[in-house]
Each structure stands twice: as structure tokens, then as C-alpha cells.
């Protein structure tokens, strides 16, 4: 076949001129717009107790909370609690991702497997992890195993549900197309169903990461010697209210950072959706 017989190619490109100052201004305005609500919330938190709108004993001003956090950071407690919690939450999340996404893909794909497993999944999913906490402790003890298991348990449901739904929504024509090109079931998963499902699966991962932090607090309220959940409950019962709030802030902060990482990953995997910038 001669290359010469091919159709002509089109090319009409012009480089994009950078516009530095207007862009910077635009960025700044955008940033202000985005952080408006957070700044507002922070101000409200600072002022409400100072103006006597709320009880300053149980809702101290934000600066007091941050000062308490600073003290915790200096004496090393903050790092201790944070690292312990992070390890448990991330460990559980990663385990959940590693088993729940492949399982969800399989369930979404093999109807009969879904029929078989769904009743159990619905049973477990609707059993609130908090109610199960004593059961987990009874069966798995008070150590790390039961804590990480709880995290895995509660991360599983958003991952499973979103993955199953994502698979079921993949355009059947794309699957047909891949099958006619000889894709093995495994390749079909990796090269078609997975990329097509990524946006919905990522929603599942982001929900799971929040779930991980949620049950972590619950599990660290019992049977823990350290961790941010332990810090919160200990501070609460000892009326170290600023410490309690700082624990909450720390957990939120971890959650937000995790979420940002996940969103960056998602953006990376779905780069094809947006035009080059």
C-alpha cells in the first residue's frame, strides 16, 4: 500500500501568546471568590464568641483554638495523634480501594455475581458501623486490626456502590467495540470499563475518604491510646474545649488535603475531557 495514496493532512496552528498581568489579576480575583466563604466562616467563628453571641466556654474564638493547636504542635502531641490517625485512615482506605473497586467492577459486569452478592452487600452496608463497633471489638479485639477493619468496612460502601453504578452506565457500544477487537475480559476491564467509569468511581473514593475519617473518630473513641479521635474525645470529656476544636480542625484539614490529592488524580485521569489550557 503506498503512503502516497492517502488523503491530505490538515495543519493550521498558531502559538498561544501569554498575557501575564491580566492573567495574574484574574487568578487573584478567582482566588478571592473561592475563599470568600471560608474567610467568612472563620470571621464568624472568631467574632460570635467575642461578641457574646455564643457561649465562649464551649465555643471559644478561633484564635484561641489555633493557639491551643500551636501548643499541641510544640509539645509533639499533634504529630503523634495525626500520624497515628493518618496511618489508620490511609491504610484502611487503601485496602478498601484495592478490594472494593475490583469487586465493584466484577459485580457491575457479571450480573449473576451481583445477584449473589447484592443481598449480603445491602445487609452489611445498612448495618451502621457505629452499632457494629462493639461487635468488631468482640471479634477482632481492641487493637489496630479492629480499627483498620472498621475503616475498611465503612469505606467499602461508597466505593462499591459507585463502582457498580459506573460500570452499569458504560456505553454498551464501547464494550461491544472492544470485544470485537479481541479484548480479553481483563483487558475489557482495564482498558474500557475502568477509564469509562473513572469519574463516578472517583466520587466513590472521595466519599470513602470522608467515611474513613468519620469512623476513625468513632473507633478512636474506644480502645485507643492515640489518634485525633482520641484527642477529640479526651479533650471533650476533660473540658479542654479548644483542644477538641483543634482536633476537629486537624481531621478536617487531613480530609481536605486527601480530597485535593484525589481531585488532582481524577483530573489527571480525565484530562481528555477538557481542552488543553
Amino acid at each position, binding site marked *: 500500500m503506498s503512503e502516497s495514496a492517502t488523503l491530505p493532512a490538515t495543519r493550521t496552528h498558531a502559538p498561544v501568546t501569554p498575557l501575564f498581568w491580566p492573567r495574574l489579576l484574574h487568578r487573584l480575583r478567582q482566588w478571592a471568590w473561592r475563599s470568600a466563604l471560608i474567610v467568612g466562616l472563620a470571621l464568624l467563628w472568631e467574632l460570635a464568641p467575642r461578641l457574646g453571641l455564643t457561649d465562649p466556654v*464551649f465555643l471559644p474564638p478561633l484564635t484561641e483554638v489555633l493557639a491551643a493547636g500551636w501548643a499541641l504542635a510544640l509539645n509533639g502531641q499533634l504529630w503523634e495523634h495525626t500520624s497515628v490517625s493518618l496511618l489508620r485512615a490511609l491504610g484502611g482506605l487503601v485496602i478498601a480501594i484495592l478490594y472494593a473497586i475490583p469487586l465493584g467492577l466484577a459485580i457491575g459486569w457479571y450480573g449473576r455475581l451481583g445477584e449473589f452478592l447484592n443481598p449480603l452487600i445491602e445487609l452489611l452496608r445498612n448495618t451502621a458501623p457505629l452499632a457494629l463497633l462493639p461487635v468488631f471489638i468482640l471479634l477482632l479485639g*481492641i*487493637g489496630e486490626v479492629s480499627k483498620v477493619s472498621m475503616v475498611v468496612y465503612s469505606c467499602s460502601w461508597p466505593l462499591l456502590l459507585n463502582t457498580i453504578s459506573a460500570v452499569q452506565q458504560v456505553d454498551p457500544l464501547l464494550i461491544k467495540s472492544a470485544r470485537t477487537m479481541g479484548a480479553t475480559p481483563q483487558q475489557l476491564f482495564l482498558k474500557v470499563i475502568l477509564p469509562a467509569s473513572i469519574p463516578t468511581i472517583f466520587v466513590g473514593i472521595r466519599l470513602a475518604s470522608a467515611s474513613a475519617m468519620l469512623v476513625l473518630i468513632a473507633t478512636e473513641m474506644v480502645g*485507643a*491510646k492515640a489518634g485525633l479521635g482520641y484527642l477529640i474525645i479526651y479533650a471533650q*470529656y*476533660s*473540658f479542654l474545649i479548644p483542644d477538641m476544636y483543634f482536633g476537629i480542625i486537624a481531621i478536617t484539614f487531613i480530609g481536605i488535603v486527601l480530597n485535593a490529592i484525589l481531585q488532582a488524580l481524577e483530573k489527571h485521569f480525565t484530562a481528555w475531557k477538557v481542552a488543553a489550557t
Partner: protein
Amino acid sequence: PAAAQQAPAKLEQQEIRYQGWAGQVIWIELADDLGYLAPLKPKWVGNTISGPQDIQAVVTRDTDIGGAFNGAVVKLLAKKAPVTAVIGYYGVDDHTWTGYYVKDDSPITAARDLPGKKVAVNTLGAHHEFMVREYLERNQISEADAKKVSLIVTPPVTAEQGLRNGNVDVAQLGGVLRDKALERGGIHPLFTDRDLFGNFTAGTLVVRNDFIEKNPNTTRHLVSALSRAIEWARNSPPDEVRARFTRIIEQRKRAESADAIPYWKSTGVAGEGGLISDKEFQIWIDWLVKDGLLKEGQIQPSSLYTNAFNPYASTAR
């Protein structure tokens, strides 16, 4: 006593809001049942599972009276929360106490064996934490070693199980949980809170300062009714008290069971009519000073409580 029988002065308020405990009868409920509280009406807003939460609810005006372990009360008052303790409500006596149990085959035989071990308690920052620390201190365990004893919060149902299958080395057990565990045998107490302090009042009920200011007569009437109820329970045969508790529970229709009542033995309150003494607060103040949470002399016990509304204050001693 005569003081308790006085016709009440005009009450500024007709209703007292409080939180109850599921499956238990607390003093305000007994006082109401005995007719001491009338014409005041108790208003049950729900149940709680923790003392610190109960006194927090008082500070935040969700309730008018609530109680906690004195150590927690001291911590709250150290934050300048506008409340005052008015009456003792639970504690340790010959029949009511909490043990710190080990398995019969446990290698732990004394305080020096504790560092590096795990002790199950039902809540942090409260009664049991202080008991364990006091025990270690009294047995000359260094502060560094004492820090190596881990306190593990365990749901009550799992404490015994945790002890038996080795998840924890020591478990705090009291009341129904202790009695049920002892039925199964194989465990014995390493020490008890009664070993440490003898009979003492461990927790007090608090009310808001502005409540007291606005409703002095109501406060007096309330505290008086409570103190009389405590005295009734102390002086009546336990069987009669249990029968009354059971009847109250059955009649109030709160979706709970009276199953734990047979395990009730005594009030645990040391002072007559729930009178509070300085030393019951001083011991916790000392601990908080040691922890650096309070400065030496920052708080005097007498500034934390008052027996002024308790009719037994005049007859006592």
C-alpha cells in the same frame, strides 16, 4: 429534720429540666415519686450516657441540673463555667464500689506490674482515670512509669470480654457488669476505689449560678427534696428501695427495662443528705495542679460548691 419539713416559700419556677439515665432511677425522680419535689415538676428531656455531657448541658441551658464526677466538675469550673455544685449524688461505700479486675492467672499482682499494661475504662477524663493514677502514685510508681499504663476506653459490654480474651490486662467493672462477670468467675480485683479512699462521695450535681440567683427558693426546695430522697434511700431496706425503683421504671413508660435494678445495693453517697466536703474537691484540684492544668492556689474548693441550700447542713456535724 425540721428544716426539711418547712412549708416552701413561693417558688419562682414550676419546672426543673434534667437528663436521666436509661434503666436507672436518679434522685430527682425518686424525690418526685416520694412526693418531696411537689409542687416542682421534673421535666425529663432525654437520657445521657456521660457525666461531662450532663453538666455541659447545664452550662448550655439545655437542662437546669446535672451531675458528674467531681474531677470533671473541677475541670469545668476551672474554665470559669458559671455553675456551682449543690449536692453530692454518687460515690463509694461498703456495697457500691468499682473494682479493677485481673484474671486469676494474671501475672499482675501489684502496682509495679502495671506499667506497659492496658487498663479498660468506660470513659476518659473521669472517675476511673483518676483512680488508676491515684493507685499508682500511692504505690510509689514514678510518673514516667505511670505514663506507660495505657487507659483504653471500652464499651461496657466488651470490658469483661476484653479482659477474658487478653485484649486488656485490667478491666474496670462495677455494678451490674461486675456482678455478672463474677457469676462467671475466674477474675479478682487488683484493687478497688474503696481500697483507696474508703467511703467517699465521688460526684456532685451542679446548677447554673444565674439559676440560683433568679430562683433561690426553687433551688432550696430542689436541693432539699433531693437530699431527703437520698436519705430515704439510705435509711430504707434495700429491697424496698429496689422495689420502688422497679415500680418507677415500670410506670414511667420510657422504653427501657428494669433488669439492672436487682443489682442496686446502696446509694454510695457519703455525706448526710449529700453534703459536700472540701476534701472531695481538693484531691482532684491537687491532681490537676500536678498535671499543669491548674496553678497552685488558683482554685479553692469552697468556691466550687455550696451546701447552703442543703437542709442537712445545719443539722450535720
